[in-house]
């Protein structure tokens, strides 16, 4: 791509590419980290990336629907975080560990 043009003007692709990279980073965290807390944090990162892309679309297409989506996503993400952390607390109380390599109970 013509580099100067890319760097001089900011448009939708920029936001989308940023969102994509954040999303992929979050996904890497989900796949590669062992600490359950960090996995949850990576999920939050992914959700934020998606929010970003929604808002970008909403801005550049001139519609409000994207922002409404973000509204919903944020609410749900917050709810999910609280429940997830509550579960994590229960697990810690029981197993005294949050390293997921000990939690292979779904095996077989």
């Amino acid at each position: 791509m013509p580099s100067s043009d890319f760097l001089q003007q900011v448009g939708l692709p920029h936001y989308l590419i940023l969102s994509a990279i954040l999303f992929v980073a979050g996904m890497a965290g989900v796949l590669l980290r062992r600490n359950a807390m960090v996995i949850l944090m990576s999920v939050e990162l992914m959700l934020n990336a998606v929010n970003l892309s929604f808002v970008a679309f909403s801005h550049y297409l001139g519609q409000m629907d994207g922002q409404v989506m973000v509204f919903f996503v944020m609410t749900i993400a917050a709810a999910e975080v609280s429940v997830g952390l509550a579960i994590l607390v229960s697990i810690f109380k029981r197993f005294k560990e949050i390293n997921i390599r000990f939690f292979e109970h779904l095996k077989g």
Partner: protein
Amino acid sequence: MTQQTLMAILILSPLVGFLINGVRYKKHSAEVAGAIATGAAVISFISALIMVIDLVGMPAEERRITVQFFDWITIEKLKISAGFTLDQISAIMVLVVTGVGSLIHLFSIGYMRHDKGVAKYFSYLNLFLFNMLLLVLGDNLLVMFVGWEGVGLCSYLLIGFWFTDKEKAAAGMKAFITNRVGDAAFLLGMFVLFLTFGTLNFQEINHMVPLTSELMWMAPITLGTLFLFIGATGKSAQIPLYVWLPDAMAGPTPVSALIHAATMVTAGVYMIIRLNPLFMMAPNTMMVIAIIGGLTAVLAATIGMTQWDIKKVLAYSTVSQLGYMFLACGVGAFGAALFHLMTHAFFKALMFLGSGSVIHAMHEEQDIRKMGGLKKHLPYTHATFFVGWLAIIGAPLLSGFFSKDEILWQSFHSPRGHVLFWIMGVLGAVMTAFYMTRLMALTFWGKSRVSKDVHPHESPMIMLIPLIVLAILSAVGGWIGIPHIISEILPGQPGNILETWLEPLIKAVPGTEAGEPSQEWALMATSVTLAAISAFVAFHFYVKDPAKPKKVAESLGKVYEVVYNKYFVDEAYFGWIINPLVKLSKGIWYYVDVNFIDKTTYVVADLVRGGGQFVRGMQNGNIQQYAMYIGLGVVAMMTYVLMR
């Protein structure tokens, strides 16, 4: 009553009896089960009688009642209906089957009274009657084949009735398997005939036959009839498939009387008589039939002369007499064959039932060396058996005389006959007279050799009545088939009623010239005299001079041994056919089934299990891996979408 209803009653009544007795076989006592079964048989007989009376009232050319109940098979050219025909031939057969059958059912009530499985026995008897009626009345080869197989099944069930005894069960199996071999040939015959004629209906085939007088039809017709005849040798115990009949004596005696004397074994003869126009078109087959019939008649008679079991003697006698019927068919005397079938049913059933009475009196003893002098203990049995004896040896004026003589005359006189056939027939008659007199002498006459602890007593009335009825029939039953030379000298010149009755269906062999009466008288006199001499010799041997036969047997030495052992035919079959087949089966089982087929299934099972284990590895509980799979899936999908 319409004809349809009558026909339905005739055929289905034994089936109903079978079902009632079969379902309640634990609850019914001998009297109840027997009453139901005999009632069913009698109902069949009465409906048959009514229909035959109807037939008599019809003009000769149209004497046929055909009832088609439903279309059974309709596939392109193969159209088979469940159809039943009562015409002149089947009328006689049906009356014999149901009439003699009813008498034997009655006898069984007394004979099997103390048996534990008596209701089962009666249900089998009724089932047999039903299948026999299917066989006799079916209007096409396939319905007849259903009955054919059915009677084979019932024969197996009844022979092996006391199946807890291994030998008896084996005898049942032998009968069934030997029959099966014949049935395979029967099927082949049906195939050939269907290919040739496009139909399996008797009437249609018989009508088409005159159109086949060109030479090129000879081959398929000869082949088809030959196959059918081989099937008949299985069912009717001729060489080479007769070996099951003597073993079949392991069953209860009334079974031997019904199935192996009067009805089932005559099925083969009946089939040939039904298809007589077809067989007439195949002179080669008829030659084979005549030769085998004659040989069987002589062979079985020789074996019968050496046997010590009362039922075995009668069994070989049956095989021999069946040979006569086939001989008659082979030379074109189908009417004579049917006549002899009927008279044989009377006197052979009589003698089997009589032997049943003897065995019952002797508390299950069957060896005639342990009998003798039973005349004074069993007067009625002896009297009726005496009539049967006279009939079978061909004493003049009794039924056996007329039928056997007709066969002998035809085997000489018919264009397809030969003097050698006549000689074989006479030889058989001589030996028949000998061994039957021997049987009478050793069982009823002479000094008693009964062991001390056996007290023979006469049988109850319920067993004697059938004997008396059959004795009367054996005596006078022959009068419907008086040959012409005799009827001419009788007042009123009654003529041959049977021949006239069968006229439209059984035509004389083309090329028959009028017989010389003097020739016929001469032949008749010769055979009767020779038989009488033979009977007298036997009487002398076994009553007056018991030591003589032993000396004769010893002097014959090796020959006697061979004949006594039934020419080692059974052993030959075992050694040359059965054992190699068993070995082959075992070999195939091992090398093909165990090694190959089973291994294939194991391999497949292992593959599946291995695959499962492999896939199971994916479920390792590591949720990050699961997430990775999801990610991979997303990547794949996106690649696909973007590539389009």
